[in-house]
């Protein structure tokens, strides 16, 4: 109760400080020397109040203070402590408070870490960031206050959705938000730099760190969400092209492209328009994701509550930001056509530029697939859903030239068009093609498209692998990231091509057999836990070599709220995952059993970690 009060008033104080910062920034904009410490301390104060407010919410969750509406809606006394805490951001109000916390944290760090840039630029970045922060403050206080008071005080809370009670999901939102919100710094900074006409190589190397840090977090955040979906949702897949996944993928694509543009800008003063537009796009796409997910315009696991008022607020806010950016871009940015450069067709820049266009293509495919159903519904009241085949058909063929470009591009020296080690490049291409052909031939999967696709991925794989052993080649971060990407594509491809699945209905004691696998449904146990009851099924599965595996997938019946979830049992090895999940069949003695063997599953996770590790190295790399 006291926590709710403190939390609520801290939020209001934070908002007031935001306005004060705004006032000071404008008043003293041309009188810059004395300003810095004052602004800095106000920014710190704002961070402090948001932090207090966030702590208060966490405490309310820990002591199960059901006079707080958010706690009442999302917690329960029987929940383990860990999930009480993670429940803080497992709901709409709390997660927005987390957004705000990260926003204020980042701008504070930005102010103290940015040293060699003009003070005007720092202040202007702060102003733009404050616009976003104040917007979120108002949104939080007005439409989704986490500290709403309930009277009479309920005895018991409603409980956290069980599928959210999971360790990966407890850290998934904070990590992802670090990525999203990191892009807000890039957004504010690019607007400030454009208005001051200081987009240059030195600005690029300054903002590169921020691009990298949000890119790393975004990558890891998506990975965590994907791992969670894999073992919790019981489909045995890791990516479903669900709107919610798409809205996290879109900023990632934009951010990845931005990262490459920044790298070019850092070396040569080109691609400035790309950088500006992509910086704006990354953040607006993150916001757009928030809008799509929170407004209830799309339905998904992330739809916490559908309140049109909230949706409207984010929508208006989002478009205010978009129009502001359009205004700044068109009225302040002058593309120096005179200084225009000659892009030689065989240069590193060209290859990056070409792949940028591919990335934009992938981005628009995902964007259209996600948003088009809404448009169609509004315009013609027709409901469609866009599924994986749409994305696969449109994206996969274009991956081939994309991968080749990724392999060859870094080999082209900046501007000077010289192919290093031509023989190696060509012979490796030959080997990859041959290998891809042999693999597919061996498994009777001889489809032309697959052969080319796998060989292009293999090509990138070999080239990046070889680069690890070449001393004169120094760009280790890029090499690791690209190597990780080739590994990712290879793992996904092999995973798709060589997965096998058995779906059947079995009673206890029954046996299922086909030429390769024998599944024995041995027994069923029951277990009672603090917050759920579970039915554990015991299976013995024999493969063609006679090896035996014991599996115990679970069905959990949670008490608060009453929801049945199925927990898959997964045996992970280096080469493949064995995945079994059971489901109840209504009013029958049968259990629906899905058994899948998925090769290279582990490598999908490892390769994404490698990709972000590449970013991490680049982040810590000392400037040469």
């Amino acid at each position, binding site marked *: 109760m006291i926590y709710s009060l403190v939390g609520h008033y801290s939020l209001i104080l934070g908002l007031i400080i935001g306005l004060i910062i705004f006032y000071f920034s404008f008043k003293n904009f041309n009188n810059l020397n004395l300003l810095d410490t004052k602004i800095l301390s106000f920014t710190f104060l704002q961070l402090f109040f948001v932090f207090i407010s966030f702590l208060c919410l966490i405490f309310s969750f820990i002591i199960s203070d059901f006079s707080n509406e958010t706690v009442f809606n999302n917690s329960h006394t029987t929940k383990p402590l860990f999930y009480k805490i993670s429940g803080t951001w497992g709901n709409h109000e709390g997660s927005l408070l987390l957004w705000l916390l990260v926003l204020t944290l980042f701008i504070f760090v930005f102010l103290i870490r940015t040293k060699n840039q003009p003070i005007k630029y720092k202040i202007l970045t702060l102003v733009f960031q404050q616009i976003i922060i104040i917007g979120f403050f108002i949104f939080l206080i007005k439409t989704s206050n986490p500290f709403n008071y309930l009277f009479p005080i309920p005895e018991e809370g409603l409980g956290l959705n069980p599928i959210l009670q999971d360790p990966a999901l407890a850290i998934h939102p904070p990590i992802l938000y670090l990525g999203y919100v990191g892009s807000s710094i890039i957004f504010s900074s690019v607007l400030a730099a454009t208005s001051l006409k200081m987009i240059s190589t030195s600005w690029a190397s300054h903002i590169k760190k921020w691009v990298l840090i949000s890119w790393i977090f975004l990558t890891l955040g998506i990975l965590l969400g994907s791992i969670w979906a894999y073992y919790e949702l019981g489909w045995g897949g890791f990516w479903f092209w669900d709107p919610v996944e798409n809205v996290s993928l879109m900023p990632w694509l934009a951010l990845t492209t931005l990262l490459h543009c920044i790298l070019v800008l850092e070396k040569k003063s080109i691609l400035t328009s790309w950088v500006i537009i992509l910086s704006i796009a990354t953040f607006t796409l993150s916001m757009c994701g928030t*809008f799509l997910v929170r*407004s*209830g*315009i*799309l*339905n998904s696991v992330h*739809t916490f509550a*559908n309140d*049109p008022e909230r*949706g*409207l607020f984010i*929508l208006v806010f989002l*478009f205010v930001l*978009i*129009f502001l950016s*359009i*205004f700044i*871009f*068109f*009225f302040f940015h002058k593309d120096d056509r005179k200084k225009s450069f000659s892009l030689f067709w065989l240069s590193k820049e060209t290859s990056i530029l070409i792949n940028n266009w591919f990335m934009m293509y992938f981005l628009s495919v995902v964007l259209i697939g996600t948003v088009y*159903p*809404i*448009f169609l*519904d*509004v*315009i013609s009241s027709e*409901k469609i*859903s866009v599924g994986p085949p749409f994305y696969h058909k449109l994206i996969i063929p274009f991956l081939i030239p994309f991968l080749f470009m990724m392999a060859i591009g870094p080999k082209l020296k900046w501007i000077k068009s010289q192919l290093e080690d031509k023989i190696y490049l060509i012979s490796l291409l030959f080997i990859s093609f041959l290998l891809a052909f042999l693999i597919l031939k061996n498994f009777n999967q001889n489809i032309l498209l697959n052969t080319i696709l796998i060989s292009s991925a293999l090509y990138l794989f070999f080239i990046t692998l070889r680069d690890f052993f070449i001393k004169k080649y120094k760009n280790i971060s890029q090499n690791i990231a690209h190597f990780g990407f080739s590994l990712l594509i290879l793992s996904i491809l092999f995973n798709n091509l060589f997965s096998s*699945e*058995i*779906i*059947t*209905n079995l*009673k206890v004691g*029954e*046996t*299922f*057999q*086909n*030429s390769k696998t024998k599944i024995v449904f041995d027994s069923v146990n029951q277990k009672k836990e603090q917050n759920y009851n579970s039915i554990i099924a015991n299976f013995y599965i024999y493969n063609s070599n006679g090896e035996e595996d014991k599996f115990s997938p679970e069905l959990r019946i949670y008490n608060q709220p009453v929801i049945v979830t199925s927990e898959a049992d997964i045996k992970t090895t280096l080469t493949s995952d064995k995945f079994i999940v059971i*489901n109840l*069949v*209504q009013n*029958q003695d*049968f259990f*629906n*059993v*899905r058994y899948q063997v998925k090769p290279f599953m582990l490598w999908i996770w490892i390769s994404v970690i490698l990709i972000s590790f590449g970013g991490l190295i680049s982040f810590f790399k000392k400037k040469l």
Partner: protein
Amino acid sequence: MKKKLLSFFMVLVFGVIFIIFYKGLEDSNIYTPNINIKNEIPVFKSRDFYSGISLNSSDIFEFDKTYLLNIWSSWCVPCRQEHPLLVDLKEEGKINIIGMNYKDNRKNAENFLQDLGNPYKEVFIDLDGTIAIEWGAYGVPESFLIHNNKIIKKYIGPLNQQLIYEMKLLVK
């Protein structure tokens, strides 16, 4: 001049997007697939098991007749168990049995029918299991009793004498 035009155009485009999102919010429709309350059978396209000619669902199911759709597969052990019952049911001739060959190998499936007899009036192929999803099937075996293009009853798991008896009563 060109730039002004472009900026104006951008504002216009985003304005339209805004209006559409705004409208979309007003409806605030949660996206759920239509649940067939009337249990109409789904419309789908497939191929004939033997000839490979493409088929529409309307070619298979005629309106005023009674059908039993049986989802089966040669690798499915319970299917083997229920199969003789289907063959018997066919002998009686009251219900047309339609087979949906689920995620199967053509050759194995042919051998299966040769060994155990073919009770099906028509068999079509669901190679990747997508048609089964349209029907709302959980796995194999599963059967749907259909009359007037509506699903009357759904049988999950293998059929047995008891169920067949009940089915006959229903059809009467």
